[in-house]
């Protein structure tokens, strides 16, 4: 059955069209959900796309985290629905408390847009179940604030609970423990800085990002 996916749009989002294109390419049925809407009924998954919600003013993701739709996403996640936050989406999920930690400015204090290699650290998530642990995926990054940080206890917990999903092979931004993506304790909320939607259509950026969406679309978390 075709999966219905909600792609959230905040003022300043700019990767929502790309997420929709990528999801359609993979056979899903994506729909834009404006941030003031609160109805996520009937959706099988939620994508919080990248961009500059509210212009990154105050802090990246800080204002979007208080949008009406975030409560609905929280409820959706509590019931086990898969949620993926990409780039600014990751930052928003951290600000909203759906994921631990924060994204700081890149160590080099420069915006970086380039393909990077990330290693799949666990395939026991709804987003990597179709990949193999140790697989290396080439997926573009595109951020100024992608330098993941959390306190020692949280890092220990992420490691102990096998919640670090992706690590950079060559760390491009100074992220703690090379972290490129993590999941929530329930394993159904993924935040990642690289843009898998940019690595779905071979005409524009390779296909290594497909496995992440395909895994998500393959079924609900058992």
């Amino acid at each position, binding site marked *: 059955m075709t999966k219905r996916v909600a792609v959230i749009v905040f003022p300043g989002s*700019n990767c929502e069209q790309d997420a929709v294109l990528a999801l359609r390419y993979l056979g899903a049925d994506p729909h834009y959900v404006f941030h003031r809407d609160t109805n996520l009924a009937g959706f099988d998954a939620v994508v919080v796309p990248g961009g500059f919600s509210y212009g990154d003013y105050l802090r990246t993701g800080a204002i979007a985290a208080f949008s009406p739709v975030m409560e609905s996403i929280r409820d959706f996640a509590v019931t086990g629905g898969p949620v993926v936050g990409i780039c600014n989406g990751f930052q928003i999920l951290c600000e909203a408390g759906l994921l631990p930690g924060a994204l700081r400015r890149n160590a080099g204090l420069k915006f970086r847009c380039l393909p990077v290699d990330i290693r799949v650290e666990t395939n026991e998530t709804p987003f990597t179940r179709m990949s193999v642990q140790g697989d290396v995926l080439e997926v573009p990054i595109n951020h100024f604030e992608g330098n993941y940080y959390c306190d020692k206890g949280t890092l220990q917990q992420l490691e102990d609970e096998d919640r670090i999903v992706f690590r950079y092979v060559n760390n491009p931004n100074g992220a703690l423990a090379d972290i490129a993506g993590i999941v929530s304790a329930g394993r159904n909320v993924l935040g990642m800085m690289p843009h898998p939607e940019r690595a779905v259509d071979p005409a524009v950026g390779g296909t290594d990002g497909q496995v992440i969406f395909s895994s998500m679309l393959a079924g609900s978390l058992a």
Partner: protein
Amino acid sequence: MTLTADEFERIKVILGREPNEAELAMYSVMWSEHCSYKSSRIHLKNLPSHGPHVLVGPGEGAGVIRVDDIAVAIRLESHNHPSFVEPVQGAATGIGGVVRDVLSMGARPIALLDPLRFGPLPTEGRVEPEVAERNRFLVEGVVSGISSYGNCLGIPTVGGEVTFEDCYSGNPLVNVMCIGVASIDAIRSATAEGPGNKVLLLGSKTGRDGIGGVSVLASATFDEAAADKRPSVQVGDPFTEKLLIEACLEMMQAGLAVGVQDLGGAGLCCATSETAAKASTGMNIDLDQVPRREPNMQPFELLTSESQERMLVIVAPANVGAALAICEKWELNASVIGEVTDTGQLVVTQNGMVVADVPAASLGDGPLYDRPATKPAWIDVLQDEDVTSHPPTEMGKALLELISSPNIASKHWVWEQYDHQVMLGTVVKPGVDAAVLRLPGAKSRLAVTTDANARFCFLDPYLGAKHCVAEAYRNISALGATPVAITNCLNFGSPEREEVMWQFIEAVKAIGEACLVLGTPVTGGNVSFYNETGTTAIYPTPVIGMVGVLAEGIEPRPMGFMNEGDVVVCIGHTEAELGGSEYARTLLGKVAGRIPALDLGLEVARADVVRAAIAKGILSSCHDISEGGLAVALVEACVFAGKGATIHPENHLAAHEWLFSETASRYLVSLKEKDLDALGEVEMTVLGKVEGDTLVIEGILEVTVDELAGCYRDAFAKAMGYHAR
């Protein structure tokens, strides 16, 4: 304010009385060089502007061409002076302006390109250390401004140039090109049709920033007090710009907008008078309804402020509610500030009092000058200088020095700070001859490039400007696409100097002739005069923005060698033409000599051969040969995929002439030997083979691809003071 006594008299005739303060300010900005093109109009009118692809030619917010069944808008603008005064905000707001120009045509902006020119960096040792340090600071600031503004908008920056010449130390060039797409019936002219229709002002509040920017900054040269002009630079808010894009497109798609015009140079005064003049209507504007950032703003300030991120939208009375609802959805300020009338007058009121009442069309109908022009005496002297009889002692070392020049070295340090992928349309990414974009709604793809060889134009404005068009044509053709149109940004010194005016006239004439032969009509352009500090003008720098169509089914080839064993071929014939070359500049420290000849007929014939070969799928790689000559093209082809080559030298020329001459109309391609005959009738030389991990030019030089790559890839970051990543 910069009106002359004659111009003031003319205003008195138009009004039948003396203008008041607000009116004087309005004429002053609208009749500035930047807004009125008063020194350039009589020359620009001769440019060819018609062609099978052209839907909208010069005179609108952007030119529009047809590709398959959709419309593509193109526009190239300058933001040179603001970027020198305040590089981050200057570059950022330059993007904002060109994006709104494209938006005003009804098109969604889908790509940006940034042709940038600066004075030399510290590592080059060409200028005083403090000057070089300031140049470095400007590069850092401009790139960061483009990065922060363009990336936030979600419009990919897919190309451009970054080049360095001594003349830009006192006046860098920050140009920006925007591409937009729309369905053909969505393309609109920015007009205020229909008396009774309401005038909406959308976006940011109006402040005291950028007052008189077009006259204070863009239409005057710099002196020591440049920093004092900082209040004339606007501050950008890309978030509001992004909301403006979405809200305006939503209004246009819903059929709510009669006309849409951006507020750029000369602000509200320009947007209201232009839209009214185009529709032969008038307009009443109530300044009390203009949302503002600070109290007590005078009428002339509200009318000429260049506060960014504002659009004017003309809406039928019945649709005002729906239009405002869209603004509310996007959390955007919007207010009804006036009404279209049938009087032909632009009438501005504040506190119920009329503060300005002028014929709307008269503001755009500025003076026209045919300024005197004289050929500069130094041209012949420089052309006669010898740049050929100084071969380097060691050719390998010379090559490494050349590819480490900030002009030649890879600019990935720059374009990796730009989001060049968003919108999932970038098929060919930055760092090669031209970018290739998918177009939503079309099967063909768009190839796009910007190009200017300012050294050539300095030494010979006429032939040099032809080279600018031809090189852009070659860039597009190297990707297999057919060039169909250009836009341009003509950056020159002060038109009040006869030598500059001569350069301008020669260049415009040449562009027109080249575009006619190459089949690329001029869809619009921008003139940026007064690019000089003190008495030093920049090199004449006509930047050409060219677009081409890549038909469905044709796959562009990479610029680098891909397959071991392929033969390496130079299409075209190399002459001893080192005049104006990167070799002469970087290794001899000379900008001199006679620049290469150019035969536009040959240019077309060879491009046809290259395009046909790409369409047939027989080329493994294709790269145009330009700055740095054959040697640099070989390095770039080797470094691209890490493959070496063995090359047999041609011996009709001295080695350095053969390697570094910038002879026109040449391509470096690689292909299977068996396919050589399929290339067809064309002058070419088989140079050697793709093989190994070293570039071997027999008897001349041998350098490993690793070493070449190290220099080529890291030199720019090092010159910027960063350690290579």
